[in-house]
């Protein structure tokens, strides 16, 4: 997306923009690790830096106000030949109404938040006590979708992890170590376990992000598990207060519940 943003800002082709391999030795610190800010914060900086390149060239008379990609390339070459190096820097400026305390790491790290609605349809099998997610809809408001394929991929990937979070992935932690840190005993969803994940976007814009984009990565990992648990509660009329809900967890909750009509004959045993 960062190359896309630069290409858009400078009127170049996407293929004509390449991104340097990030190296912490060479790049500045981008602030708190609060994620889901790359497109919003870095993207906006990249956009500003790209505009800075154009402004420098036009101000020095090396580039007309409207130009072709070839003219842009020629102008950059001429600038480098004359000055040796061509750098454009952009510095993040905290929006006036957002307060983040770098010392105490308190406050709001974001200028804008994404929003979402998640809907899960589940089937609970009262013989095996396993739950399957049959259908899943994610509606995301992310300001502006910059790259539809990648944006959709971020959402479906997050939802898939959320389904694992809700139904499969039980970390067993003992004596400071994860006891089931193998793919044989820590189970995550395979391609055969997932429902259709239907993704829809709303785009309400965001003045702080590149071309109106907001962060996208984290939210789809936060909402799906609660949606799935709510759907299971709706189906079984039993409350749960932890995840994941493995068959044994569902069996235990149903066995203790005061609604015997829900508990299947197999759970009641040899009556």
């Amino acid at each position, binding site marked *: 997306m960062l190359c896309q943003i630069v290409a858009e800002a400078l009127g170049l082709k996407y293929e004509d923009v390449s991104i340097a391999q990030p190296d912490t030795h060479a790049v500045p610190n981008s602030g708190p690790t609060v994620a889901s800010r790359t497109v919003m914060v870095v993207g906006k900086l990249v956009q500003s830096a790209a505009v800075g390149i154009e402004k420098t060239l036009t101000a020095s008379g090396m580039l007309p106000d409207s130009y072709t990609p070839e003219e842009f390339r020629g102008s950059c070459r001429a600038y480098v030949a004359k000055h040796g190096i061509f750098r454009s820097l952009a510095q993040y400026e905290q929006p006036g109404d957002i307060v983040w305390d770098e010392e105490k790491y308190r406050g709001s790290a974001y200028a804008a938040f994404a929003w979402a609605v998640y809907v899960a349809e589940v089937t609970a099998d009262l013989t095996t006590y396993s739950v399957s997610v049959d259908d899943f809809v994610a509606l995301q408001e992310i300001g502006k979708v910059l790259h539809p*394929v990648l944006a959709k*991929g971020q959402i479906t990937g997050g939802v*898939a992890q959320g389904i694992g979070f809700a139904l499969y992935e039980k970390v067993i932690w003992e004596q400071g170590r994860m006891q089931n840190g193998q793919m044989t005993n820590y189970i995550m969803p395979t391609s*055969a376990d*997932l429902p259709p994940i239907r993704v829809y976007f709303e785009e309400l814009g965001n003045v702080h992000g590149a071309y109106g984009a907001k962060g996208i990565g984290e939210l789809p990992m936060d909402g799906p598990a609660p949606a799935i648990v709510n759907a299971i509660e709706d189906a079984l009329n039993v409350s749960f207060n932890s995840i994941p809900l493995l068959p044994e967890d569902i069996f235990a909750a149903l066995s203790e519940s005061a609604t015997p009509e829900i508990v299947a004959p197999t759970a009641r045993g040899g009556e």
Partner: protein
Amino acid sequence: MSQAPLDRAKSEITFTVNEKLETVHVYAMERLLDVLRHELGLTGTKEGCGEGECGSCSVLIDGMLVNSCLIPALQANDTKIVTIEGLAADGRLQILQQAFLVCGGAQCGICTPGMILASLHLLEKKPQPTLEEIREGLSGNLCRCTGYIQIFEAVADAARRGAST
């Protein structure tokens, strides 16, 4: 110190990798995965779990899809192996690889080489797979990033474009 005693424990193994005849001297129980990566420099094959669960290290041996972390080197003697490096001849992506790119079938990339070989194997058996057949055919290859949906789309797209021909 001479390496002779250790070297004597090694076996000479000859196989064809991506249509090129290779001879290596390795311990018989070395993992094929390590032989490909360390002896032949074919680092496109990735190690995920190292216990045959995730499919990241998938390669084709005589047309069979296998986890190369579970194959002792000696078992590969006299076979024909295809790794991800064997797919893009002259740097040109195959239809299937192009479909992964266009459909968003890859994110972090660790599962991708194995996923593509599993997809290729599926398309060779079933040139026009149904969605259920794609799900089943790729269920031995775990992906943490994509949620699989766009991988299914990539395989279906490649099938439509005749990737298996």
